């Protein structure tokens, strides 16, 4: 198994732990990832309000580069995953958009065909690797660890390509295969506010507080995420969001928990980048780690 890998900007910055743990997990599972050569920013949800058509061309450049490699494209960041998928939808739905994107790719001598499969790591784990193969590789089961699985918005909305839109369970299944207990988390697809903690701090903080409160109320000992911005918001503003009850809950990428179970060493899976030390929790739950 081999895939083209599109990290996106956040996985090289605040989301480094996502990249580190992701690469370690797939290495442990014997899946090869080759980073897309000279990829550019997907445009996220920001460029589009500045220049809609240009934003499609930016995403299309990455798709075209992946097409040249002839492999499915893995996009772990929720925003990148959405933007790449969306561009393919719009290019198909609106031929005039397709025409403009084709011309733009032509200008930089890239193939116009951008019909590669964009895949989420959870999709690959469930449908290509398989839960049985994953289970067979677990060396440090996460027995008894209560995890709230937080999916956020863009992995399932608006395109639910491999999971349910209103009640996604792919991350639950993958983490359960590692022995974790998934707690009831009714806000699992609610919005964390994205960049609003920076632009409209009070509103952003309210959204973050609600997500942390629900996790705490349902007895979660850790929150698992699939998006660098969700992870950042939920981890970095816990003190600020605390009211009468104080928040102190590790917020991890789901790949970090996987890495833990697969026996990857903590500092090879980005745990040293967390604001909250995971070791006391692991000791309390008697979970072994490398």
């Amino acid at each position, binding site marked *: 198994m081999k895939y083209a890998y599109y990290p996106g900007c956040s996985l090289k910055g605040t989301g480094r732990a996502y990249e580190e743990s992701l690469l370690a997990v797939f290495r442990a599972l014997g899946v090869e990832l080759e980073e897309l050569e000279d990829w550019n920013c997907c445009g996220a949800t920001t460029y589009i309000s500045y220049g809609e058509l240009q934003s499609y061309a930016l995403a299309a450049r990455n798709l075209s580069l992946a097409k040249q490699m002839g492999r499915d494209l893995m996009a772990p960041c929720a925003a990148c995953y959405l933007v790449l998928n969306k561009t393919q939808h719009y290019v198909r739905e609106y031929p005039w958009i397709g025409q403009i994107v084709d*011309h733009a790719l032509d200008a930089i001598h890239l193939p116009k065909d951008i019909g590669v499969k964009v895949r989420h790591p959870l999709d690959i784990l469930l449908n290509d690797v398989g839960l049985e193969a994953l289970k067979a590789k677990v060396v440090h089961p996460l027995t008894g660890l209560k995890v709230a699985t937080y999916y956020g918005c863009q992995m399932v909305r608006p395109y639910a390509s491999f999971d349910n839109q209103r009640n996604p369970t792919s991350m639950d299944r993958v983490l359960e295969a590692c022995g974790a207990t998934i707690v009831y988390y009714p806000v699992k697809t609610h919005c964390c506010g994205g960049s609003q903690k920076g632009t409209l701090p009070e509103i952003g903080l309210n959204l973050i507080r609600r997500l942390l409160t629900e996790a705490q109320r349902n007895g979660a000992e850790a929150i698992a995420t699939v998006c660098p911005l969700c992870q950042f918001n939920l981890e970095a503003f816990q003190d600020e969001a605390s009211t009468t009850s104080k928040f102190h809950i590790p917020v991890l990428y789901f790949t970090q928990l996987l890495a833990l179970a697969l026996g990857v060493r903590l500092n090879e899976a980005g745990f040293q980048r967390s604001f909250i030390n995971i070791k006391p929790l692991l000791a309390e739950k008697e979970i072994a780690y490398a």
Partner: protein
Amino acid sequence: MKLKRVVKVEAERDPAFALWISQTVGGERIRHCLQCGLCSGSCPLSLYMDYTPRRLMHLSREGFKEEVLSSYTIWLCTSCYACMVECPKKINITQLMYALKTRAMQEHFYPKRFAIPVLAREFSRMIRGSGRITESRLVMRVFVKTAIWRLLGFSKLGLRLFRTGRMRLAREKVEKRSDIVTLLNAVDTTRKELAR
């Protein structure tokens, strides 16, 4: 006591704006809107909005341009797509919010130093220049142009990010930066040609 008319009247409509929204990508079905309110009900930000998404859809398709483009609603949208998933008429509300943001920026319909449009502008400039986003540099640029004093409040967080190696100041960039500029320019030229 100063009395003010709150009901909008026909004469305040801008029919050209109404036509534009119905021809915008995502807005083709806006005239089918039932005003059912599922968009507002599913929107996590609607309780902070001056017009809820349902009301904004109606104002837009009737052509109340001033109200729509100067509303906070369009800037509060975080692209979570909850409304689009719930809409029984499959109106692409999120996409329309982008289009409305673009119009509001082009026609200067937002308060000076308002951080969200500034973020959009700086983000786009950084992509044109480097092809990639360096998060730390982007955040600093936005604060410098909107509310520089707020940077102080972030010093503790910045330090933690720096210590954990999550804040890198080195500029992320693509090798073929000229390709990015060529690509973006080609979009504009083709669009103009198609318009003719």
